């Protein structure tokens, strides 16, 4: 069979890095090609080139046996290449149908006329969407389905998904895989980027691994295994064994009693949550997104007011100020790394010092010391292997995973009493994930208490001492991790009774 899409020696340079270095690969009809690689390996850059967002410095793209120029997303769509972006680009106030009609609908009543077509496509591939629903009400998974339908509506034969599962719950991810299998069966080709090897092994037909912009290997599904892929990606073997040995629990660090709080839309979000968190303990918090996890963490980080109930940190009432909390030893790895965790226009050194810029050695008597910024940053960049062209690069130019590393390096510096970790390994490659897990465990050994919010059950089960499940603002548990089963957690997450 001849290749549907071929990349030949694609090279793309950015100031200070070669993001893609003579990358060649083929995509055949009816297959799922997984694109793997460490943070900053050049995956997003490569698909941006395919979708016409960047132009390669060198190399050729061939579609159906002919060389093509892809100068814009319009060109890409004309050639049958569609992209499902990691962060949806839909208009929130408009309905699904209106969004889908953008750019392709007829000038008059575009949304109505497109309706039947949408339904045919959606049903054909098992994509459940309601064309009349306004987009802002949709879950991340639903938005992603809308993006997929949009690409298909425009006749995509090759569908690119850039880290589609990092924003999805495990259930939503499962649904996505079902859709992907349907699409494959219908002869479409899919390019799939993910850091989660289980997912890759369950869905991909072939895996291509990038390292520092170069293709370092291509494996068929049969040849691929977790250790093999990991080694190709990182260049060394990676340990997947990270069961924690239970540490002796220390004193209580955090006491939460009958906590109630409201969401930003002023709806009750936490309905009487109580738990204790001890020194040396990792408490895992499971739950489908939107069941109060964000609000709970925000209360504990001093970002949301308490409606009723009590929260005590080391026996004292919680001060309602994030800065005071940080001084008391509360580290916060936030859910949103762009809007909250970093200042994208500031450089790496400055972002690493966001918490501490006003104290020595970064500043003395109100005056900043640029030398200290650089020195401290150099240490942290090294410790966390942050891939950045320089310390003066604005953080928005880093790859997704490396932005996350900047936040981790900053928040986990020193010896926090309490670590609020929300999706701490979101978007990280396996090497970095392993490192973050190790650091979290080390910190607990040294006496930190960790509240770990994650949608990755694997991560929760392997790291936590106890696990609680939030459903509609009420907490089930926490239970000792040896005493709960995966199934029970899954049931609680959807409101069932185990």
């Amino acid at each position: 069979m001849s290749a549907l899409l071929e990349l030949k020696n694609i090279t793309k340079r950015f100031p200070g890095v070669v993001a893609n270095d003579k990358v060649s690969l083929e995509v055949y009809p009816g297959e799922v090609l997984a694109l793997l690689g460490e943070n900053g390996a050049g995956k997003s850059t490569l698909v941006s080139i395919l979708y016409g967002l960047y132009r390669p410095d060198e190399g050729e793209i061939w579609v159906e046996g002919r060389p093509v120029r892809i100068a814009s997303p319009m060109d890409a769509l004309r050639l049958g290449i569609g992209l499902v972006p990691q962060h949806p680009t839909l208009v929130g106030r408009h309905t699904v149908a209106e969004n889908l009609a953008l750019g392709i609908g007829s000038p008059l009543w575009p949304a109505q006329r497109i309706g039947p077509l949408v339904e045919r496509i959606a049903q054909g591939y098992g994509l459940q969407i309601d064309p009349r629903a306004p987009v802002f009400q949709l879950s991340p998974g639903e938005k992603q389905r809308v993006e997929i339908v949009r690409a298909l509506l425009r006749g995509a034969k090759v569908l690119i998904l850039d880290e589609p599962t990092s924003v999805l719950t495990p259930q939503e991810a499962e649904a996505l895989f079902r859709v992907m299998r349907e699409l494959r069966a219908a002869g479409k080709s899919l390019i799939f980027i993910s850091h989660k090897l289980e997912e890759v092994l369950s869905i991909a037909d072939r895996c291509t691994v990038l390292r520092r912009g170069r293709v370092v290997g291509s494996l068929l599904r049969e040849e691929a295994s977790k250790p093999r892929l990991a080694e190709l990606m990182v260049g060394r073997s990676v340990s997947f064994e990270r069961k924690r040995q239970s540490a002796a629990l220390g004193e209580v660090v955090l006491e939460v009693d009958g906590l109630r709080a409201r969401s930003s839309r002023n709806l009750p979000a936490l309905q009487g949550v109580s738990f204790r968190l001890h020194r040396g303990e990792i408490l895992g918090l499971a739950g489908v997104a939107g069941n109060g996890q964000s609000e709970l963490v925000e209360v504990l980080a001093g970002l949301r007011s308490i409606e009723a109930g009590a929260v005590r940190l080391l026996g004292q009432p919680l001060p309602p100020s994030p800065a005071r909390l940080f001084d008391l030893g509360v580290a916060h790895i936030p859910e949103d790394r762009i809007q909250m965790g970093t200042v994208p226009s500031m450089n790496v050194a400055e972002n690493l010092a966001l918490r501490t810029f006003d104290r020595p050695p970064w500043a003395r008597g109100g005056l900043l010391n640029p030398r200290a910024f650089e020195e401290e940053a150099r240490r942290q960049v090294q410790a966390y292997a942050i891939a950045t062209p320089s310390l003066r690069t604005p953080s928005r130019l880093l790859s997704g995973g490396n932005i996350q590393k900047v936040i981790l390096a900053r928040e986990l510096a020193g010896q926090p009493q309490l670590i609020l970790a929300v999706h701490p390994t979101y978007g990280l490659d396996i090497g970095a994930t392993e490192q973050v897990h190790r650091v979290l465990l080390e910190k607990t050994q040294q006496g930190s208490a960790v509240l770990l919010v994650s949608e990755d059950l694997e991560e929760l089960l392997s790291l936590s001492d106890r696990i609680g499940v939030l459903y509609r603002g009420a907490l089930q548990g926490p239970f000792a991790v040896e005493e709960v089963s995966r199934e029970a957690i899954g049931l609680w997450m959807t409101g069932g009774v185990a």
Partner: protein
Amino acid sequence: MDDWGCGVRLEPLANASPGRVLGVTLAALGLAFVLVGAVFVAYGQNPLEVYRLMLSGTLLDAKGWQEILRRSIPLLLIGVGLTLAFRTQFYNIGAEGQLLLGAVLAAGVALFLPLPAPLSLPAMALAGALGGALWCGLAAWLRLRFSVNEILSTLMLNYVAQSLVIFLINGPWRGKDVRGYIYSDRFAEYQQIPVWAGSSVHWPTLLLGVLLALVLQFVLFRTTLGFRMRIVGENPGAARYLGIAQGRVLLLLALITGGMAGLAGVGEIAGIHHRLIEPSQLSSGYGFTAIIVAWLARGHPALVLLTAPLMGLVLAGGDLLKVSLNMPFRIVDIFSGVILFCLIGSELFLRYRVRWGR
């Protein structure tokens, strides 16, 4: 991004280099001069001739230089303040009103506060800064307390300030020797800012402006206060996450910005007019022209040292056209408007790279 069907496309640019910023800015200015040249043609003038006149009458002429400097002083003071404000996403477009209020308070001190002579000018300067600061602070307070958009409130406060000046010099502060025009009494000799011999360049104000530009540049990039300002301005979400008191930073910033505009007002009345006069003569739109000055400086207070004289040149040149070519004074507004328009349009080229061909 999108194909325009004629082989032109835009490629997102992650980071515009300083060289690119300079190039694009110069190109925008160049385009503005071409467009305004078209207006000159419509007036039946040869644009090259007009520009030659503008340049030779300003840059090649001692009097012209003085004129540029005189115009640059208020632009410098206001522009530096606005650079900070825009950087922190506080869109103060009421510098005109803040200038007027600074003038009103300074005039009030000069006319009615019996002070020992050496204290009089410093007191006027302080009062003027305070007036501008409070006028701007009011808008900041409205935004913090009631979420009133500062673009609207500062704009509206301009009109209030204008009416206040007119009311004062027409009523309670009306001068004894007024005929025709309205204005207040003249300030005493010791209440006037010294000027360079034979010109109206009140150099102490100029010096103060230069100093403040450098100081604020330092504050912004080398102090913890400046670091805080940048965080608040560049990512309010992160400021909240870090627990930075955004309200306080914003208020402080508004006070600084307004205070600088107030000082500009003091300079105008104590350095040039020596009395409180009608708003349109007192300022001739410095508060608005300074918006361009600040925009051109792109967040760097020290760069205002270059951009203020540039717009000072445009204003001085415009005056010249009015006098020697009999053009309406509004020609200067056209100039400013077209320049601002081209600059804002040129932002596109900082965010995207244009690729020709396919």
